[in-house]
């Protein structure tokens, strides 16, 4: 690996990290604004123009709020919890292809931090670790509400991971690869996976809601029942990290959904556009940059959807949530795998004879 | 049977005897009479079980303190309602202040539980047989029963008031 590429990777990873943080920060702002607009209100508008400085105000306040560790809490784990949540959330954006290749001079830059051939599994593994942050934090608080929140988080995440994985398998069967980059490339133009996997996408979407603890699956922190759930005892920036982690998770989930089902950075007629330029390098770069824009547009659309749903639906009850996961989603996901397999076989039969 | 104050009263007197159903009158269209603590539960049970009356709803219970009635200072008022016949009646029991003991009604009406606790809290009535007779609204450490007429209403620590203006 030459040094240019290494430096580039370093910068790129930092940039992606920064963008994740920025998006997470502003997700709080958009959450408030979207909630307000849905509810016929105007939302924050005093801190800066249109309230744009609101997230900074929140962050500034949280940073300078008193750190508080409950007397009977397990101090090490209490501090570790939000750290894990944040770290794990930030790690997962590494394998997402935010764009195609960018050609500058001689070098070709891939707009992906690490192109591992098991990208999907990586995401899956990292996401499955996210629950530790909540569990450890909730348990270490030594508060029954936190503990209940932690327990709910744990069982919910485990249950929905299964359905999520099963719904993914159908996509993998179509693509034949575990690399997100490959999956993205396969969906060139308008050949998005959503056309082949509507049911799989639906299952994945529901599971994404559950994995990010958003309404209607926000049981671990449901205010009306558990006050703050696992973060009841957290103040200051540790709370901020939990909230941050949640929004980064939303961002990552949106990015993954966009990549897996909605063609990542691909958009219709991109080939036509690419060919319209005389200079292939220029054409490629323009399409790539447009593709990055398209990717982020898709991500934002999903983030909006997350918030839109949050402010519309009531939440499930614990046993209903479990029932939905185990009795409905997992069988549906298996059915989806069978259908996909059958479809592939039929397709092969008719095309290849 | 059309329930009127007269025929219900007649029925009750026939059942429990004239000495136990006294002072019957209709102050506001609701038949009111007085009985004693020996008969109150049987009376309410009778009203509950009787096929004609079906007085099966305890509207409310309230303690009243008459410090001037010697020997019968404490009064407990039971107001019952027959939903079927839309007929209300009010029963009073007087007991002396030194001995504010009444039998509990919780075996017939579940709702009497807290009402009795409230009466205990406010007036110091003691209901024998009550499952959990502790204060309900006030703090348990309170040393008196605040609704008795001799105790003041006001918070004694208030500073910003001059009583002479208020005619009380």
């Amino acid at each position, binding site marked *: 690996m030459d040094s240019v590429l290494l430096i580039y990777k370093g910068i790129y990873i930092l940039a992606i990290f920064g963008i994740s943080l920025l998006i997470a920060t502003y997700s709080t702002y958009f959450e408030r604004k979207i909630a307000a607009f849905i509810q016929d209100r105007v939302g924050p508008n005093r801190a800066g123009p249109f309230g744009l400085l609101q997230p900074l105000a929140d962050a500034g306040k949280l940073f300078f709020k008193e750190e508080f560790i409950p007397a009977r809490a397990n101090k090490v784990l209490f501090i570790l919890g939000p750290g894990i949540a944040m770290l794990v959330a930030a790690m997962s954006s590494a394998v997402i292809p935010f764009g195609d290749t960018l050609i500058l001079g001689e070098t070709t830059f891939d707009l992906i931090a690490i192109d591992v051939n098991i990208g999907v599994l990586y995401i899956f593994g990292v996401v499955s670790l996210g629950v530790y942050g909540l569990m*450890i934090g909730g348990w270490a608080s030594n508060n*029954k509400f936190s503990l209940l929140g932690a327990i709910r988080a744990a069982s919910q995440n485990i249950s929905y991971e299964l359905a999520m994985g099963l719904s993914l398998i159908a996509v993998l069967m179509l693509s034949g690869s575990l690399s997100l980059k490959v999956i993205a490339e396969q969906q060139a133009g308008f050949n998005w996976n959503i056309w082949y996997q509507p049911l799989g996408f639906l299952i994945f979407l529901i599971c994404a809601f559950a994995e990010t603890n958003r309404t209607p699956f926000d049981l671990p922190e449901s205010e009306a029942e558990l006050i703050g759930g696992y973060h009841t005892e957290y103040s200051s920036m540790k709370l901020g990290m939990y909230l941050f982690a949640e929004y980064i998770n939303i961002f990552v989930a949106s990015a993954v959904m966009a990549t897996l089902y909605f063609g990542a950075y691909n958009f219709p007629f991109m080939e036509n556009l690419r060919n319209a330029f005389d200079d292939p390098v220029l054409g490629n770069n323009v399409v790539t940059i447009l593709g990055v824009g398209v990717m982020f547009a898709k991500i934002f659309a999903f983030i909006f959807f997350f918030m839109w749903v949050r402010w519309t639906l009531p939440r499930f009850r614990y046993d209903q949530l479990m029932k939905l996961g185990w009795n409905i989603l997992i069988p549906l996901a298996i059915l989806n795998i069978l259908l996909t397999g059958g479809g592939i076989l039929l397709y092969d039969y008719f095309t290849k004879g | 049977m059309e329930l009127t104050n007269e025929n219900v009263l007649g029925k009750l007197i026939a059942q429990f005897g004239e000495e136990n159903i006294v002072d019957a009158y209709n102050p506001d269209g609701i038949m009111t009479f007085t009985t004693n603590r020996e008969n109150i539960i049987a009376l309410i049970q009778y009203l509950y079980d009787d096929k004609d009356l079906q007085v099966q709803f305890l509207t409310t219970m309230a303690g009243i303190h008459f410090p001037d009635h010697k020997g019968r200072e404490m009064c407990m008022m039971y107001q019952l309602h027959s939903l079927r016949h839309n007929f209300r009646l009010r029963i009073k029991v007087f007991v002396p202040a030194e001995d504010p003991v009444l039998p509990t009604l919780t075996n017939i009406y579940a709702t009497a539980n807290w009402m009795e606790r409230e009466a205990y809290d406010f007036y110091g009535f003691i209901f024998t047989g009550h499952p959990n007779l502790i204060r309900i609204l006030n703090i348990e450490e309170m040393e008196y029963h605040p609704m008795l007429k001799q105790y003041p209403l006001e918070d004694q620590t208030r500073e910003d008031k001059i009583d002479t203006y208020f005619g009380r």
Partner: protein
Amino acid sequence: MTESLFFFFASLTLLCAVMVVIAKNPVYSVIFLILTFFTISAHYILLNAQFLAAVNIIVYAGAIMVLFLFVLMFINTGKNVQGTVKGSIISKIAGAVAGGLLFVVVVAALKDVTLGHPDPATYNSQVGMVENLGKVLFTKYMLPFQLVAVLFLVSMVGAVMIGKREAGEQNF
């Protein structure tokens, strides 16, 4: 580079594994166990077996240990378990003897093992990749693979049966 990484991870693995045993608080034990899985996954990555590494984390760290922790949290609710397991001296001796025997067996078994060194000329670095793994699993090891699947099915049915035993009760 790779070698130093290996020694680093190996020592970390051993350290974590020891900590699993000696940690007083069961929750700490579980957390060290998770760390152990991570370091083992790191070894897999050193061996260029990325699939195994990921699966190891997903299955063990991501699912099974969550359940462990879950159960521990349930047991621990409200009580301050100091983790000192009070066993009789006999059980301690028995434990020591059993552990010692196991150690002897392991040593005896591995005494004559010759560590095979891959031939650089024929060594295929892609052997641990998903595609190859899949091919091997579905051709050469087809029967064992199917048997394992059946085993899983049986154990799953068994788990469901155990879980169902408390009829009429709402459980997690």
